[in-house]
């Protein structure tokens, strides 16, 4: 709790004003089922600040045309907006070159791209792909599909009872046949922050590249790809205050250059004859077809919005809320937090008495409280903890202590109903 207070002070002294942040999100002031909305489902998708919606509307109202091909005024403007968003993402991730930023639909598509372009080239029969026990299905299934195709083996690094990745066990599993390590930056189901930099160091020491699922990482912890040293980093726009349908794959230029295209079509070519096609340069080689231009503009606006906040203070606000929420939920009789790693971000996953999370979710919903219930697309992790599902409250920059209090009060109502 002391850490919580310190973080709270840091947030306030650092100039983070949650009420001002909330004013950017019109949806937060709408009632739900006659109650004030308490939105605790940002790990599923964040709400969008009006700056994002306005930027997208402005794009459609003033700049829309197809990119990279027209010689006319609007096409030039649209291309500028789209490529400007790419540069914005480069800056956010601190990538060396904008050409290392590939726009995709979301993290899932990014990870599939890596598995089926980079992975397919690299992994052969008898090889191994190493993942962790806390991965989201989207960082398991593509690798599983690749392994099935190639006759390779999916190897899993274990997670301890607190939800911490056992780093030495991961390292022990990096063998002579390991071709890729794929790991979540932050677990969506538990909130565990993985030591990606250390994982990268240990994997690189054995010549193995590292793919990072940053869907929950990019919104909540520093995601500096040069500092992390990772080979690939994927994240989704809609989990970082941007729109759905746009996401990012960062890849080191040397990898992207060497990788075959993933999808064929327009925009990814330099020239086509029926005999031979010459592919475009990176990143365009990986962006077949008309891209999600308005989505990219919206993502750029989301990153502008995010980075205009005092970053250290904003992170401190989330940490303080997490500490406050951890403390508050710990006082609820019969509640057990699932995921108690010392390094955590933005997620409070729990089980409560023997009440099924789905029933908890329905009762809380009637109080205007939105949480996620289920296996969070991490069934192997649920099996690890011997449970089918959890209830998950997840935090965003707009959440408040009062909303945590509302959750605790809602849980008492759940207890009265089912006890």
């Amino acid at each position, binding site marked *: 709790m002391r850490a919580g207070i310190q973080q709270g002070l840091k947030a306030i002294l650092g100039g983070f004003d949650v009420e001002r942040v909330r004013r950017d999100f019109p949806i937060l002031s709408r009632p739900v089922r006659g109650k004030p909305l308490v939105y605790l489902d940002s790990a599923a998708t964040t709400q969008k600040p009006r700056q994002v919606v306005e930027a997208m509307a402005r794009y459609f109202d003033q700049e829309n045309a197809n990119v990279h091909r027209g010689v006319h005024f609007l096409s030039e403007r649209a291309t500028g907006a789209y490529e400007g968003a790419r540069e914005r993402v480069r800056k956010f991730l601190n990538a060396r070159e904008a050409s290392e930023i590939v726009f995709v639909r979301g993290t899932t598509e990014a990870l599939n791209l890596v598995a089926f372009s980079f992975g397919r080239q690299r992994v052969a029969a008898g090889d191994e792909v190493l993942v962790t026990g806390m991965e989201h299905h989207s960082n398991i299934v593509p690798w599983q599909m690749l392994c099935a195709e190639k006759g390779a083996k999916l190897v899993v690094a274990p997670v301890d009872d607190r939800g911490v990745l056992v780093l030495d066990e991961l390292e022990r599993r990096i063998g002579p046949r390991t071709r890729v390590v794929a790991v979540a930056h932050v677990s969506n189901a538990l909130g565990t922050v993985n030591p990606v930099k250390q994982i990268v160091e240990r994997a690189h020491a054995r010549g193995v590249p590292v793919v990072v699922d940053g869907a929950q990482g990019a919104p909540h912890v520093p995601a500096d790809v040069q500092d992390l040293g990772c080979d690939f980093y994927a994240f989704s726009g809609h989990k970082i205050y941007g729109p759905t349908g746009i996401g990012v794959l960062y890849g080191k230029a040397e990898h992207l250059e060497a990788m075959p295209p993933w999808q064929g079509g327009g925009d990814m070519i330099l020239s086509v004859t029926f005999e031979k096609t010459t592919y475009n340069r990176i990143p365009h080689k990986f962006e077949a077809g008309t891209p999600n231009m308005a989505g990219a503009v919206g993502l750029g606006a989301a990153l502008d919005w995010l980075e205009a906040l005092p970053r250290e203070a904003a992170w401190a606000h989330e940490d303080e809320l997490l500490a406050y929420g951890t403390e508050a939920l710990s006082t609820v009789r019969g509640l057990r937090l699932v995921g108690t790693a010392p390094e955590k971000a933005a997620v409070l996953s729990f089980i409560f008495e023997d009440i099924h999370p789905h029933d908890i979710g329905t009762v809380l919903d009637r109080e205007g409280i939105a949480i996620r219930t289920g*296996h969070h697309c991490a069934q192997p992790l649920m099996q690890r903890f011997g449970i089918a599902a959890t209830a998950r409250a997840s935090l965003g920059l707009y959440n408040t202590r009062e909303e945590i209090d509302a959750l605790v009060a809602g849980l008492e109502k759940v207890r009265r*109903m089912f006890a």
Partner: protein
Amino acid sequence: MATRDSQLDDLYQEVILDHGRRPRNFRRLDDADRQAEGLNPLCGDHFRLYMKLDGDRIQDIAFEGSGCAISKASASLMTSSVKGKTIAEAEELFSRFHKLVTEGPDAVQLSELGKLAALSGVCEFPTRVKCASLVWHTMKNALEGERQVVTTE
């Protein structure tokens, strides 16, 4: 909590809470001649349904597994309701039940549903309809002799 939420109270009626806590026919049926598995991947409800047929009559029926209060109560009520009925009667009951949870109590003759009427509140909760109907779909598969897993997705 001064105000009552009547829709919520309708959903979690005493009968539902009771059957959710102490489900009837909640056991393995060792001499079952039909069985099927039902899975709701969204929330992790997972049941195995056992059936013993005597000609076209459901002589015994039971289930095992885990799930939310609604799915468990529905399994408990379903097994209680179809035990002793013919396959045709059970299927007829399913179509009435389906109408009840999707269209609401006004769309059916509640008296024909017996205890199943306790699930009438589900229609106000679209996301919970699949919880209530999972075990019924599982029953249908068991009757049709299909061994694959039923899912509500």
